[in-house]
């Protein structure tokens, strides 16, 4: 399967997908670490965290897929939300929490 198709599958079949450097337990970059903390702060139930450092094809492919040059990148319900600056702005204003809540992706099952 083409890498663009792999990414499309990931973002459409998972509510919240975070492309990051490292893992949520061991982020390898401050911006990725911030992104993980923000999602935790939102109380997101489940995140598919994709470590781009583990896969050079994904690392390049996601930049093309999103037309966005940097990592981390957040997708919610198949929509590109942004990188860590945008996540921070939306978290500070409460928009991110609302978006995730509206999508039914936070709180208890």
């Amino acid at each position, binding site marked *: 399967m083409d890498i663009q198709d792999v990414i499309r599958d990931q973002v459409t079949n998972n509510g919240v997908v975070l492309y990051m450097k490292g893992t949520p337990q061991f982020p390898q970059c401050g911006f990725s670490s911030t992104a993980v903390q923000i999602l935790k702060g939102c109380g997101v139930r489940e995140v598919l965290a994709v470590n781009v450092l583990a896969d050079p094809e994904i690392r390049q492919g996601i930049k093309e897929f999103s037309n966005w*040059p940097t990592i981390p990148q957040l997708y919610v319900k198949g929509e590109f939300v942004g990188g860590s*600056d*945008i996540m921070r702005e939306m978290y500070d204003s409460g928009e991110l929490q609302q978006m995730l809540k509206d999508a039914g992706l936070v709180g208890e099952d």
Partner: protein
Amino acid sequence: MSATRVERIRAALQERFAPTRLEIGDDSALHAGHAGAREGGGHYRVFIVSEAFQGCSRVVRQRMIYDAVGDMMHKDIHALAIRALTAAEAESQGH
């Protein structure tokens, strides 16, 4: 070398957006030694206020800025933290 990069970023953004405010910070020293820094790219912070962002989403604004700095994004810049506002937004947020 870093000063030159900041000046190049400034020139590119100045030309594209005619900002009423433009602040560029160089955080490269804070990240010396980490993987991205070893590849040679710097860490920069941009605070920019311009009417060019009117009606544009956050994602679109950042894409506009990435586009304006062009090739630097791949070679000279490892990370670019961006805050892009219109004058009205900057005022309402107390900047």
